[in-house]
């Protein structure tokens, strides 16, 4: 069945069950992936998946939901029935409706959908990449984590009010994580990931080079003394921390009492005036962009922080109604509709005269800690309290030299961090989760075991 046929099937089944109001979101995908181990194929994987989430409104306008992988006629009927039963438990205190924007035009971009190259080609390419990475430096002994994959999927949203949206996409990913060993030293690891619309769009050579350079750069390591340091966040690590505390911008989190912000926080000064942050799911560099969210609301660019002040929250239909505004295209379909950012873009605002522009990660000769990548986000972030304590990969720069830091954590408070940004470099870099320049922050605590 195609998505139009499924919509018809759901409509007919709903009629037969006397269910007047419904909507659904669906995803149909075919995924292929390979892993190698020293030139040999290790695991080759293919999957065909379908997920259907149906919501039903009962006569009291309460919502019930069911998710299933069974899209047969009987499966769809069962799902509608279960959703109808679940609607008896619908949330009376926070009604859910169709998005008022579910039929608005969506921005149609060239989907750049590619054709599958097939498992054999994936395997050949990954084998070659593994060999090149192993040959790139004598210390690199293995590539324990690696993978090349391609996915082809369709996403659909439709409702009983006549809204129907769908799009198809393809995406490929290459992941190389190398392990280097030298005599009388601890093994060191690092890696790189590259995304593309298809395998042919992935810059494999650059992935190999990045993985090799990063791994080798950590071979010469040392412990760091526990102290407060001047910090330079890489674009990737700064985006990681912004995403980890995105509940600050999230209307759902505010209503749930787990955000540092509240309903009246719009306009509050959060950081230096030099900082702008946007959510821009449709950005041309966002390989995973979706033209609409789980409720069918069109995706759009939204300013979250403007010149250091909180400008907008991200919303679903129900949070927007409560906040007396419009949905922003950030909803995830569920019994309790979730809200999350798409693609964060960080940039320097026009109000940047207070920045210490001498702080440039490629030229600055004073002492600072460069945080390349933050780890264990799920464990080390207390989003509702604003605090974090996270292990990281990075270097200590001192007297013009850099040395990899062995096993350390950076700890602090997100509000302190944002207010103590001392420089935002000019060049933005594209990462897998957004775009950001290097960001400098004064005085964060680093714990090491020196």
């Amino acid at each position, binding site marked *: 069945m195609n998505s139009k046929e499924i919509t018809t099937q759901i409509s007919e089944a709903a009629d037969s069950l006397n269910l007047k109001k419904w909507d659904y979101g669906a995803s149909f995908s075919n995924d292929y992936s390979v892993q190698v181990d020293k030139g040999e194929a290790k695991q080759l*994987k293919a999957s065909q998946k379908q997920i259907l989430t149906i919501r039903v409104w009962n006569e009291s306008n309460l919502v019930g939901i069911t998710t299933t992988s069974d899209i047969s006629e009987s499966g769809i009927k069962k799902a509608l029935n279960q959703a109808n039963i*679940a609607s008896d438990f619908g949330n009376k205190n926070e009604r859910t409706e169709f998005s008022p924007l579910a039929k608005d035009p969506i921005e149609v971009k060239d989907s750049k959908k590619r054709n599958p190259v097939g498992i054999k080609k994936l395997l050949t390419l990954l084998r070659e990449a593994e060999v090149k990475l192993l040959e790139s430096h004598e210390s690199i002994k*293995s590539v324990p984590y690696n993978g090349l994959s391609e996915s082809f999927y369709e996403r659909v949203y439709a409702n009983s009010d006549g809204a129907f949206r769908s799009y198809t996409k393809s995406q490929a990913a290459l992941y190389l994580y190398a392990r280097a060993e030298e005599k009388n030293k601890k093994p060191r690891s690092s890696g790189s990931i590259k995304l593309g619309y298809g395998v042919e769009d992935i810059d494999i050579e650059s992935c190999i080079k990045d993985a090799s350079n990063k791994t080798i750069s950590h071979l010469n390591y040392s412990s760091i003394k526990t102290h407060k340091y001047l910090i330079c966040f890489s674009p990737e690590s700064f985006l990681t921390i912004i995403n980890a505390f995105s509940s600050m911008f999230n209307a759902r989190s505010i209503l749930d009492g787990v955000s540092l912000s509240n309903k009246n926080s719009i306009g509050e000064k959060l950081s230096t005036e030099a900082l702008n942050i946007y959510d821009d799911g449709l950005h041309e560099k966002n390989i995973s962009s979706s033209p609409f969210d789980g409720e069918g609301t069109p995706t759009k660019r939204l300013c979250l922080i403007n010149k250091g002040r909180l400008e907008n929250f991200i919303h679903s239909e129900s949070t927007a109604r409560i906040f007396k505004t419009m949905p922003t295209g950030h909803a995830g379909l569920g019994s309790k509709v979730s809200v999350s950012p798409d693609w964060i873009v960080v940039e320097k605002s026009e109000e940047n005269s207070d920045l210490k522009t001498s702080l440039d990660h490629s030229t600055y000769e004073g002492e600072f800690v460069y945080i390349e990548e933050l780890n264990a986000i*799920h*464990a080390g972030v207390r989003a509702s309290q604003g605090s974090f304590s996270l292990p990281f990969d990075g270097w200590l720069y001192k007297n013009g030299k850099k040395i990899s830091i062995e096993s350390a954590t950076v700890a602090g408070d997100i509000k302190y961090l944002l207010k103590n940004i001392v420089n935002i470099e000019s060049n933005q870099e594209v990462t897998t989760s957004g775009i950001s320049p290097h960001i400098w922050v004064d005085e964060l605590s680093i714990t090491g075991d020196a």
Partner: protein
Amino acid sequence: MLSSQIKSNEIIFGSCNKDLLEEIIFYGMGLGADFVEIFIENTDNSSVLAEEDFITSVSPSFGRGAGIRIFKDKKDGFVSTNDLTKNGLMKSVSQAIEMLDITDNKKREVFNGLDQHRDYSLSKKKWINEVPSIHEISEKLLVSTKSLKKNNKIITRKGSYSRNLQEVIIASSDGTYVTDIRLHQTVGLNVIASDAQYRSSGSRRFGSSGMPHEFRLWDHEKAANDVFESSMNMLYADYVDAGQMPVVLANKFGGVIFHEACGHLLETTQIERGTTPFENKLNEKIAHESVTAIDEGISEGSFGSLSVDDEGMEPEKSVLIKDGILKKFISDRAGELRTGHKRTGSGRRQNYSFAAASRMRNTFIAKGEHSKEDLINSISDGLYCKSMGGGSVGATGQFNFAVEEGYLIKNGKLTNPVKGATLIGEAKEVMPKISMCGNDLELAPGFCGSISGSVNVTVGQPHIKVDSITVGGR
């Protein structure tokens, strides 16, 4: 060549599917596979969320799917599908064969048909009717969240329940033919407390396997008191000072550190990748002699227990470390094939869309002879980690864990609560520093995410003392 007459063109749960399964396996073997495994599941899940004094989410879900794995020499091809018809399953076998580039269909391995059906589901078919209804769950969750409202500093209260019922059929070319039903229930409570600029949170999770009435028996009052006290104790806590110090880790969920930092390194998937420092350490001392560690899947009702693993093998009790000496690795079929370590009934997967891998079940450090007080009294300046948050382990074995509820130890006594602590180290270096084990072993449920998805496990330990570890703070 068929072993018997074909009766159905689709997998039907609750019926005998032997003929169809044999036909599919014969088909794969006939195309040159060394080994064919079919894993089919039918799931019926539901979850309920209570926030403050209201039910805000009820989410049922159901689904069916198959995962087909073909081995040729030491490599394997895995295909998953929602299509359980004969044609759909045959197509998946063909796809796996093609992926592995098997062109030589000379039979080297022989399939003699499926063995006698081992049906572990017989006594479990009534479970679906015995688990609590959504009404019953909702009522108890609302009573639980009400119990959390003990003062006006509690600003957020949540109770959540989820139930997963999974019916599985496992058949493979070594003759394995198994059916089983698995039931997992879990319930959790969370609070956020706030007073002026101070904030704290508290959470606890409880879980069981194969016990349909367990939620009814859950002592929600005790759980609510525990979560409330934890959040109040931590509300005005200062940040801990970073440094090297001795620590005492509490029992139950304190075992998450052993699970993450050491347990994963004893899975054969880590040997396959060359990422465990313990690969060549069998029968060598890797931990303090006070440490004996076990992984098993047989404790009745424990969250990580199984009647049979996802490859059709009954789980065994594996003594991983005995008095500090490494005795065994946790192994699955691929692990045995690629590393030579015998299977331990630990082949596990989140669902049909993952190939099974060697995974922990109920993993714990065995009890010792000391009381909790002995351990604390032995420290003049250190940290007591009463409740652990999550953590992670890097590719080279470094671990990092958040301490959710911690207290300073001064001159052998517990003193001020402290927040923001993280424990940092490497298993190889920390295991020899576990110098004292308490006599109060207890287990706690959790979810473990790894190569074959998220699986239910328990972690556990008695109170243990680590002589020195890096504590991250401010």
